[in-house]
């Protein structure tokens, strides 16, 4: 059975959403893979995200077998691992970067478990505000979910287009910070269109929770961000930024800025 509800810590993520709400703005959530293309440029990428106007940074802790990710994030993870990135390496990067915006660690269960029982408190000490684990759905492992839910980090849970209504409520109740709504069936990666069912899915989710709703998977262009921003509290952009990071921080800055402008229109 599912674990008890997560503690609703009013941490920096919640404060960020409260501030945005007062200004009637949408959150720009930006994913990049830690250590990609290398540690030095990863630092510059983080800086570019902040300067470009990101509200929240999702920092990918690379895993060798990312089953929820498409080719771009797979390749970035493999590259980061080949350069020696580890969980502790991600925390060290975070300590050096000291971003002014909240950081959510984004990963898979195995590297988090391998980092030990104090992995989450160490992440909080390094400056992380939240954690998102793609392969631990609600009710799958109550003991480990409780561990994730009781830490100082906000525990961000995912809702899919296939999730039935009753389960949506269950998921929202066991998460904190915000709810991550996967926009379409499939893995991460750039898509030309957003799912036609998205407005209806957001509406269903909205009726089950008061947490902010951020939509991700497949959003890459300012136009997409603008249209999804009309429906949700935030948009998540991943693969497009990872591709930009491949070219350098200027590209990251440019894309982040254009996403920011589209969202604030």
């Amino acid at each position: 059975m599912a674990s008890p509800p997560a503690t609703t810590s009013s941490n920096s993520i919640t404060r960020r959403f409260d501030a945005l709400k007062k200004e009637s703005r949408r959150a720009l959530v930006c994913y990049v893979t830690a250590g990609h293309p290398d540690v030095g440029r990863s630092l510059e990428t983080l800086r570019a995200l902040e300067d470009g106007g990101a509200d929240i940074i999702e920092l990918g802790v690379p895993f060798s077998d990312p089953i929820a990710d498409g080719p771009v994030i797979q390749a970035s993870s493999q590259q980061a691992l080949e350069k020696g990135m580890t969980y502790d390496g991600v925390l060290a990067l975070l300590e050096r970067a000291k971003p002014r915006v909240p950081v959510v660690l984004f990963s898979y269960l195995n590297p988090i478990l391998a980092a030990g029982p104090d992995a989450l408190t160490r992440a909080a000490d390094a400056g992380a505000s939240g954690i998102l684990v793609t392969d631990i759905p609600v009710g799958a492992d109550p003991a480990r979910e409780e561990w994730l839910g009781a830490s100082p980090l906000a525990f961000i849970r995912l809702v899919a287009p296939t999730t039935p209504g009753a389960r949506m409520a269950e998921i929202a109740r066991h998460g904190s910070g915000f709810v991550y709504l996967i926009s379409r069936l499939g893995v991460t990666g750039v898509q030309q269109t957003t799912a036609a069912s998205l407005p209806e899915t957001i509406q269903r989710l909205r009726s089950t929770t008061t947490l902010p709703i951020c939509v991700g998977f497949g959003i890459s262009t300012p136009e997409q961000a603008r249209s999804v921003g009309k429906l949700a509290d935030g948009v998540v952009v991943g693969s497009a930024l990872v591709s930009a990071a491949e070219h350098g921080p200027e590209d990251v800055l440019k894309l982040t800025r254009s996403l920011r402008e589209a969202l604030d229109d």
Partner: protein
Amino acid sequence: MATETHHRFGAFGGQYVPETLIPALDELDAAFAQAIRDPEFQRELDRLLKEYVGRPSPLSTAPRLSQAVGCDVYLKREDLNHTGAHKINSALAQALLAQRMGKRRIIAETGAGQHGVATATVCARFGLDCTVYMGEEDMRRQELNVYRMRLMGAKVVPVLSGTRTLKDATSEAIRDWVTNVNDSYYIIGSVVGPAPYPRMVRDFQSVIGREAKAQMLETAGRAPSSVVACVGGGSNAMGIFHAFVPDLAVELVGVEAAGRGLDSGEHSASLQRGVPGVLHGSLSYLLQDESGQVHPAHSISAGLDYPGVGPEHSYLKETGRALYVSVTDDEAVEGLGMLGRLEGIIPALETSHAVAWVVKEKERWNKGDAVLICISGRGDKDLAQITEMGLLPA
């Protein structure tokens, strides 16, 4: 909805998958539970296992091998199934289940190609659309099976990521399933993956052990003292073990691939050298580094070249009910030649690991022992590879 403990074997197993798949796994859980209670499903499965697969597979005595190792050896002949391996037992049953569920697009992963061939075969038989993911490295090692799949109308998709073997083919099949979950059924090839797959594939493979148990009584007038099978993901082993698990007098032995040696770092012995971790939806013994990154496996046999193992094997190891051992690439090749020379049966390289262990451990056997080996598949698919490696006698 099924309870979380129903998804596990002790602490192992579970459903560590993206949220998108949870409703599909719930649906599968329900459809499987309903099908196995439906006499009509069982009748149809039994009929096809008989008329299409050729079951029951024979139990062969092995007089010359018995003499060589100093005890009675019996061979459960899954190599004589249609398509040449045990994989079709589960592929056929899952294809029937897919049709019951109204899914007409099938996805599968394959390592040695035997599961891919079995899946392509049943898809041809039922007119289902079939996509098989296979690592590029394995497509090279098991070229014959790639032709067989394509000949039967399956689409074989090369997987270029990671180690380009079974692990990455499985990841890619899961990604396809997440993307096409509404109309697609994923036929997993072993007792791995998220619940209910490990239990379901085991149940569909358990026909091996049920038949063998009765055949042993008929042929030998007794139960085996040991049952030996190779372990990749572990489906032929669970298939032959399952009926014997309650008979504590019967020793169960799973043989993993030691590759270039257990201390070489290049092997697939997850149960002996791994630690519990999460891969492909379940918690089980896993080859990984201190950072929780999956360590690439190695085996001469593509079907054993996998860093994980089915969660029920982890449970049988932890409880001590089964013993897990290993043999190297070289020993496996010797085992293949030995069964060929002594019994006129050329086993698959995967199977050869089980044969090789029985031969290697001959000091351990006493005259009164009856050792039952699961001959999980035939070796034709491997001959090109071992000839190329210069391992066949001229």
